[in-house]
């Protein structure tokens, strides 16, 4: 009996002291463990999809990217008045401080995209999957990484250059390298992307909207166009894009219609879908905010209607007579009705609202479900870049061809021959201002021309006397410099 007790004891003690090692291995149930992912094409594609996602955020195209038009003087914040949108008001009045919440928001937008692109670029080469998806995924990652850096370098200047995924063992506190190096990386990434990506025409169904060869080449043209030191490259690249099957839509308004998204004129746009939902703080899949934010306040034209981005009189005056784009882009007293409703100038402080992105209630019943995509690169931009580049090369006659195509589509007559280089440049810039109004392009045009002097001259001319050369770049957010003292500040802040 005694021995039986001891045997039982020993068995129980043995069993209880030798719990298997698996007992203590618990992994989260609702997230994916990075150590064994991705293992196949499907899983890789979900990682690639994640690289696109920051584009959708309010930190980027859903809010901050288009508010740069306010900073560029095309419009005012408007909204509820008072301190509504104060961070954007401060930016547009050039009293931006290092703790401006809008600047911090923009800073937070691209870096997650860069991390996700780096992850894709590091895991894809080692996978045994079909060549098509492999090349396409690498191409998408290169394109998006270049795109995110392109946004950052134009707003902030010198940046840390990060080309591999970060972990807690990495150098988490890097220094800034000169923007020339950043541009070299962007160019190299876009060149690789242009080779790896398929043509837009090769996409179908739910792949339409992915990065494509035309987008990579077009963006590369944009980079050289911004740098302004190799106009021939711009001409070559835009000509190559022309050969890929893009064309202008018959109507300007087709570019901003949920029914005609990802059209023949679109090289690359941010995708939005109907039931994304609205959440100011969320980073998840979003619906578009352009309609609710730019809808006239108190008008019931659209779901939401917060009255942001009210065009100034000075901007309205830049439309030539009979420019059919005015009625598409702007809501003004005496203009065509919207969804059967008449516009009243009292809806806005300036007397005008943006019409371009508004979706009628039948398409978007409330503030949180506008499905309208946001244009990043359109074919008309390609044509205007070509025109500007040809002019800079002294070929003003050839430059008229693409320019006039854009103007004719807007119902405007051809530009006269015999303009000087400077005068022609002004014409192109003015055309860009009107054609690409409220698409977040104007600020970048202002700061690139004449090394930014063009911006200061223009801003002073519309009364923003505070604007000085330091304002051509945003300050590095103070909170980020507190975390990483190696980040130097931009001059003047």
């Amino acid at each position: 009996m005694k021995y039986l007790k001891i045997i039982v004891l020993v068995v129980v003690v043995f069993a209880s002291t030798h719990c298997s090692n698996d007992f203590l291995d618990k992994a989260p149930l609702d997230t994916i463990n990075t150590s064994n992912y991705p293992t196949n094409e499907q899983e890789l594609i979900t990682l690639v999809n994640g690289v696109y996602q920051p584009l959708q955020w309010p930190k980027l195209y859903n809010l901050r990217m288009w508010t740069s038009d306010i900073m560029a003087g095309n419009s005012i914040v408007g909204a509820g008045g008072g301190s509504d949108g104060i961070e954007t008001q401060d930016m547009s009045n050039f009293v931006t401080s290092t703790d401006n919440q809008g600047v911090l928001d923009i800073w937070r937008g691209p870096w997650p995209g860069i991390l996700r692109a780096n992850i894709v670029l590091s895991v894809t080469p080692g996978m045994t999957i079909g060549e098509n998806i492999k090349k396409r995924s690498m191409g998408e990652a290169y394109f998006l990484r270049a795109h995110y850096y392109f946004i950052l370098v134009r707003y902030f200047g010198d940046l840390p250059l990060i080309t591999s995924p970060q972990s807690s063992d990495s150098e988490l506190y890097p220094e800034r390298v000169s923007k020339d190096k950043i541009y070299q990386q962007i160019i190299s990434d876009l060149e690789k992307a242009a080779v790896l990506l398929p043509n837009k025409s090769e996409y179908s169904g739910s792949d339409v909207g992915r990065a494509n060869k035309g987008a990579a080449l077009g963006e590369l043209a944009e980079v050289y166009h911004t740098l302004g030191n190799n106009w021939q490259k711009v001409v070559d690249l835009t000509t190559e894009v022309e050969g890929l099957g893009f064309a202008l839509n018959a109507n300007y308004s087709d570019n901003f219609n949920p029914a005609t998204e990802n059209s023949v004129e679109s090289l690359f746009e941010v995708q939005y879908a109907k039931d994304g939902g609205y959440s100011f703080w969320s980073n998840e899949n979003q619906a578009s905010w352009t309609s609710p934010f730019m809808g006239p306040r108190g008008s019931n034209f659209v779901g939401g209607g917060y009255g942001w981005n009210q065009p100034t009189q000075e901007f309205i005056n830049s439309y030539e007579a009979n420019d059919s784009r005015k009625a598409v882009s702007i809501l003004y007293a005496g203009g065509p009705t919207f969804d059967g409703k008449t516009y009243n100038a009292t809806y806005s402080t300036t007397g005008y609202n943006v019409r371009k992105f508004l979706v009628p209630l039948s398409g978007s019943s409330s503030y949180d479900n506008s499905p309208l995509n946001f244009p990043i690169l359109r074919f008309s931009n390609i044509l205007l870049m070509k025109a500007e580049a040809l002019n800079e090369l002294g070929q003003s006659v050839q430059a008229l061809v693409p320019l006039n195509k854009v103007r004719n589509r807007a119902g405007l007559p051809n530009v006269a021959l015999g303009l000087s280089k400077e005068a022609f440049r002004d014409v192109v810039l003015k055309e860009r201002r009107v054609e690409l109004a409220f698409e977040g392009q104007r600020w970048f045009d202002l700061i690139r021309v004449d090394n930014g002097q063009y911006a200061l001259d223009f801003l002073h001319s519309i009364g923003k006397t505070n604007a000085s050369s330091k304002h051509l770049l945003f300050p590095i957010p103070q909170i980020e410099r507190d975390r990483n003292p190696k980040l130097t500040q931009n001059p003047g802040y």
Partner: protein
Amino acid sequence: MIFLVTPFLMMAQDGKIKLSGKVLDETNAPLPGANVQLKNSSKSLTTDAEGKFTFSVSEANGVFIVSYVGYKSKEVRILGESFMEIKLEQEATTLNTVVVGYGQVKLKDLTGSISTVKLADLSRQPVANIGEAIQGRAAGVQVISSGQPGTNPTFRIRGTGTIGNNDPLIVVDGMPLNGGLNQVNMNDVESLQVLKDASSTAIYGARGSNGVVIITTKRGTVGKSSVTFDVSTGISEATEMLQVLNASQFAALHNEILNNAGLTPNPEFVNPSSLGIGTNWVDAFFKTGFQNNYTFSYMTGNDKSKVYTSINVFDQKGIILNTGYKRYILQFNSDTKISDNLKFGNSLKLNYDVKNSGDFNIQNALLSLPTQPIYREDGDFSGPIGQPIYSGDLDNPIGKATIVENSTKGYNIQGNIFGELTILKDFKFKTLLGAEANFWKTRTWAPSYSWDNKVSQNAYLAESSNQAITLLWDNTLTYQKKFDNGISVTGVVGTSAQENKFEYINGSIQNFPSENTQTLNNGIDQATLHGSGSEWAIFSTFARANFDYKSKYYATATVRRDGSSRFGEGNKYGTFPSGSLAWRISNEGFFKSKTINDLKMRLGYGITGNQEIGNYSFSSNYNTYLYNFNGTYVSAAVPTVLPNSNVKWESQEQFNIGVDASLFDERVKVTVDAYVKNTNDMLVPQSVPVTSGYSDIYVPYINAGKIQNKGIELVLNTKNIQKGKFLWTSDFVFSMNRNEVIDLNGDAPLITGGLGLNYNVSRIQEGYPVNVFYGFVQDGIFQTQTEINNHAVQVEGTSSSNSTSPGDVRYKDLNNDGLITDIDRTFIGNPNPDFAGSLNNTLSYGDFSFSFYLQGVYGNDIFNANRLYTEAMSITTNQSAAVLDRWTAPGTSNSIPRAVYGDPNNNNRASSRYIEDGSYLRIKNITLSYNIPVDFPGKKIFDYAKVYLSGQNLYTFTNYTGFDPEVSSNGIDNNVYPLTRTVSLGLNVGF
């Protein structure tokens, strides 16, 4: 009563007679250090190491009183014997044996710092939860309760040790409790101990650093059968009610608010005094609460088996409209002896509870306009009519509290079965299998309503179903031996394995065609569906050894090795050692005090851990979100949080020194403890830069912080008067704790105390206590424009409606730069009390007993966030009566600013304006009880019958202007459900 007597030899020597004897304990072992006193004289001595004594007396008659701590004193008549053996009986076990982790220790042999709470009187307090009953009763244990029915209180043992989870481990009948203390019926509890220092808690390893509360429920007693019935019924109300303005006062204020901003006042308020009193929303919102508590139990025991069963029903209606709590508990404990060496037992608790409430918002009840009636003429609830600037914009708080249905139903089972085998006489092997299952369902039904301006078009229903299952398997081998040379040894070696899995599913839907059908199937729009789960596991081995030499020298050593699924790969296992020593000075030969009966000194040091660091902090994950292309949804896998695979437990080292003494024939018992607790490797948020690509808001935690707590605890129990039928005892408890954040891994403070968008009132910063308040410093009110001009610039503008003007708050310019900016903020208060104390006096005379319990804290500050809304005077809401003293002209006030719409000077910013002294002294409980005489001639029906009247939170002395100074552990009063004053009548009957 057993005492053995052997013949006495008279020995005459100098006229003196020598009497000798030997004192034994209940196991017939000698009891050294026992006190032998000649009754009615001051002569006394203590027994030697063999329990022997020799007394010289002048006459051969008289009485000795033999006593020892933890034992019943015995009077022994001298009957002309020369040598007596006197065997002492232990005192009632609850006070004598202390349950420590995986074992029991006699109170006299304790080497660590453990508080024992006497439960007999506590069950008469009209509280729902045993946690509330022990408030103030154990030194160093801070209990913060909320008045909301069905909530569990918060414990802080020896200060706030971490910025993470501070909850102590609660062990019930040997099993760590996963659900809350609501599952335990106070009447079922036999003993409650709080382990405070590392030498006691180290046996719980990575779960011991916040302290351990050990609860043991009643089990049967051998040779005793009884049936008991306890019933009590009580009513309650808020301890303090706030005064708000009536209709005419409000109208006058509102006119002023608008006029001062250049806006047109409400035409309906042109004659404020004609509006009279108006609606009293507060009165309609708060009601009298009720509670009923019934417990029925039976127990029996013989030398083969013991059984205890009880059933408890608790029903409470809260003091806020439509809030309530109902609870049913069934407890079943049994012990069965199969043979001399083998015993089995079980403890089982079944519990069902329901919390229900409407959508209640205390601030809205204070802010609703007195000029608006609660109901309209058609009987429906009212809402604002017309422009919000005149009629406000609040949903009718009575309406919301009435029509919305929130309920949480919980079904809990906690039980274990154990077997104990005695081997080779001195070894005991015990194995315990335990399981806890918690199931709870929540439901929110919000019907549609149309209350004038305030319309909710669609009804809304949300439901959730949750479950958590925890399994436990403990094995221990205990060795206990008392050697003849006076050394006692107890050793425990054991393993413990515990596993938990939590799962939930929830859904919601809106828009019901008929609001009579209220299930998820009937809704139409915006369906949501979520569900997930998580799990954790712990595996540990531990050992403890106790040495005791003649009850004079003690040494204890413990060590525990914990492996937890929460720790990263490199840190899966942690080791937690501790040691303590104790010295019973009063047993030493050189110790000859007559007044001090027992004096023991304790010293302990140990390392414990805190593993409440989240279940998966170490893992590296992608979250899945949706994205879309061309309108079609696709999934996206995204990294969000920078992974920290090195995360491990927080560790804490504690050093404790203590003295236990009993004096004056054990009429005075004193315990003093002093401790220093250092939390190292505290988890603090990592500073992650945005350039890493990971979120800089959802950051990982790294083990890099340090917090220190040090303090002193004092407990004094005295028997002041014990004469005949009259007894007066006092218990005094005092604790003092100082808390400081030593290191946060960088100079940047952590901003806490968030009250909404970008409004934070506290910080965690190096060199300061945890959650210290941080804000501007108010320096009175500007009386004239000249004063504004002479002071640093606050808000500039063009008129009194958009700039700093006379009547606005003046803030101190701390850096003297002429501008009031965010830099002019500093530390404005500390929510941690300087000290806490309580005093309980019990007087009893025969069958009557009266106890009076005072409890208080001192030195803590409260941020009264309710005043942000009730004293804003800047929008259209009702305000507290305090604003009747607002500034209206120079010299009218130097503390409450002017009323002006829009608050251009931001008088509402986080500043010392809202910091109040939270010190209070409370008459916490008064209980009057009477033992009904039960000795009927002939037949004895009852064993005992006691009737009592008890009042809880009867009166509070405090300068705090809010509802009640007991707010949350971070000292912020933001819509906190106030504590209640309860009076109850009860009856305890035993058969």
